[in-house]
């Protein structure tokens, strides 16, 4: 084959594969059924050292080893949605994230991925939230604080979905051995508050705005696909108004609180009370409870402070 012929072959091959539809080789992880074993436990810790109180909460839950097996692929999913500084309370606090990443590494994780599909420009969000700079300080190649790779969104059928039948999910989130959800609790114009259930918006693709049309039900449906092993709610600072991105320091109330539960609904329900509201005020909590994703009646949960 002469050079010309060879180039022709390569060009044809190139053109051929570029025009065929992509094929995903992914088999979505088996979707878990309702697993929260009653009574749902909620662990709460208070203090000014956010790294410490986060570690204390995990300790009380039986240590990270309970969730992260040696060699596990771990995903820690904070909220990095906005180009805001930690004081502005729009994103998860970097120390809370760092604590969880460190503990997962100590438990022998093979990799710890931290990512979010941001609303503002992703490089600004990762940087100014303080999360990327903080994680870089760990200097461990197993920590991967990477931007979302659009190629990795794959369509997933939502078997038990009441409103949504199919949506695009982030492959790495689906494939994680241990998925730790780390939302920041804050005000939100449409849903009232944004908590753990809403944090899943950061691992879905497509035009996310449509989720708002029936937000409570849609969020509950999405949450049947990705079931976090652990939900850690950052309530160190609460953004009380102008959520979800705020901007004014006067709208932030310092609470120095971190709480965690293996039951995502219970975690959201408890976090709601920190805003002086009852769990049933949040439609996604109610919808998820009705679908059996967890417990929203706090009187049925054991609440432990450490």
């Amino acid at each position, binding site marked *: 084959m002469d050079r010309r012929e060879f180039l022709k072959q390569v060009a044809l091959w190139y053109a051929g594969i570029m025009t065929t539809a992509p094929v995903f080789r992914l088999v979505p992880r088996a979707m878990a059924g309702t697993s929260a074993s009653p009574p749902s436990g909620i662990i709460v810790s208070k203090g000014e050292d956010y790294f410490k109180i986060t570690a204390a909460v995990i300790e009380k839950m039986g240590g990270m080893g309970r969730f992260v097996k040696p060699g596990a692929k771990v995903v820690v999913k904070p909220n990095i949605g906005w*180009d805001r500084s930690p004081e502005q309370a729009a994103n998860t606090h970097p120390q809370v994230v760092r604590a969880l990443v460190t503990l997962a590494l100590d438990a022998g994780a093979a990799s710890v991925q931290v990512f979010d599909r941001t609303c503002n420009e992703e490089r600004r969000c990762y940087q*100014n939230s303080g999360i990327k700079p903080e994680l870089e300080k760990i200097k461990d190649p197993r920590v991967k604080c990477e931007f979302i790779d659009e190629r990795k969104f794959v369509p997933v059928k939502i078997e038990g979905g009441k409103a949504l039948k199919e949506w695009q999910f982030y492959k790495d989130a689906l494939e994680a051995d241990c998925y730790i959800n780390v939302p920041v609790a804050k005000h939100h*114009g449409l849903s009232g508050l944004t908590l753990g259930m809403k944090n899943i918006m950061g691992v879905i693709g497509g035009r996310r705005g*449509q989720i*708002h*049309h029936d937000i409570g039900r849609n969020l509950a449906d999405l949450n049947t696909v990705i079931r976090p092993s652990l939900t850690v709610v950052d309530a160190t600072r609460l953004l009380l108004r102008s959520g979800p991105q705020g901007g004014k320091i006067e709208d932030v109330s310092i609470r120095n609180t971190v709480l965690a539960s293996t039951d995502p609904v219970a975690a959201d329900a408890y976090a709601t009370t920190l805003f002086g509201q009852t769990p049933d005020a949040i439609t996604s909590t109610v919808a998820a409870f009705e679908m059996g994703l967890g417990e929203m009646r706090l009187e049925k949960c054991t609440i432990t402070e450490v």
Partner: protein
Amino acid sequence: MNKKLVFRRARQVCQIFFLALFLFLFRQTDYTGLDTIPYAVNLFFRWDPLAAAAVTLATRTVIPLLLPALAVIGLTLVFGRVFCGWICPLGTLLDGTARVIRPVSRPLRPLRHIKYVILTVVLVSAAFGLQLAGWVDPFSLLVRGMVIAVDPLFNALVTAGFDAVYFHGPGWATAVSEPVYDAFKSFILPYKQSLFIWPAVSLVMLAGVFALELLGRRFWCRNLCPLGAMLALVSRFSFFRRKPLLACKNCEACHHECRMSAFDDDRRMMAEECNLCLDCLEFCPKQITTFRFTPPVNRAPVDVTRRHLIGAGLTGITLPFLVKIDAVAKDPSRRVLRPPGALAEEDFLKTCVRCGECLKVCIQNALQPVLLEQGLDGVFTPRLVPRLGYCEFNCTLCGQVCPTGALKRLTPAEKHAFVIGRAVFDRNRCLPFASSTPCIVCEEHCPTSEKAIRFDEVVVTGAGGAALTLKRPYVITDLCVGCGICEKVCPLPGPSAVRVYPAGEISSDLYPV
């Protein structure tokens, strides 16, 4: 190595150095994790005497940002057009293409005068308030072409290749290709794929400059480039020149080999056409050429006639009026959104050299070139197109890279207060109004610390007859800065139900205070 070859090598090293610097600064024209860009990425425009002259004439003010241009003038006063031969990245690229594109024929007759004509038209038009430099300035052509077409095209092609392996290749191939792709992304490719309106226009303009090499080496530089013309005029006074000033009788070497065709029909050398490439040190069969400091004696006149100049001057006067009588410029409905920090529209049009730096740096790919929507005057100026990309609230990059100050450098506080435009809801389309569907994604994204979008809670009868509580958005106009994120995120197909329109200036035109 032969001594004469050393000179040529020195020139080539210098050219490659500045080309590399140019490409490096091009790549650095981006967000890097810092709120301010650490390099003077717009350097090549700031030392561009053509841009400086055209902007100074049009605005009748001295723009401090453009003072480095004096250094290039100074350099030319001493050494002649070394800038063209040793520094200009477009010249270097054209020299580089000489290996690929060979002239198809000898140029029929010299066309050197055209560049003086172009220069005259640009400067006279500028003096009458029309900024045309962006059409013909070599850096504007080059950077704009790269920003709008070459760079995105390059990225798309490379990425398509890696994507093909990623989606269709076997596992082992992906294991190899992905690390290579990561390396490409870190060092060669832009951070993300940008998209611009009508890239073909800028591509064709730039490609045209290269295609002209078919008609002769450095065709653009010797016949068309107005910056070259300007430096040529300055170099009439330069001290460093080639000797002898006459090509020898019975020898055609100078005539045929000089890439700038710096010799007239009477064998006289036109020092202002010489870009000091030093080739004649080598090709001279008798090896008698030298370059040295000598008093600026010019044997031949500048190759342009008074007729040409009068014609150019008249054109330069007429074009601004052609723009003035164009209704397009007066039509408020054609006003576009300017980037944050933009001068008042009239001054903006005079000051902007259409370089494309702001389009390149925009972190949201929100800035797009204006094409014909604003008439001749607006072509290639930047506009914000929120449906494609919004202006990031805390970003101030475009003002930092603008070489002429058409976009002011804003502090974060000034940026937060700068009004690009104002948002307006179209209730006929907005979901909570038009179809009683909950939405307010716009309110969620509105970045002003006191939200410029608020909502009323209303109870309506839903489709099924049951009562439904809805949040219906509206804009607090005084709080809105026109960033356009609401327009961008509106989930409706087609045009957004909330759109940003130009504000301020236009309304004060209509209702003077």
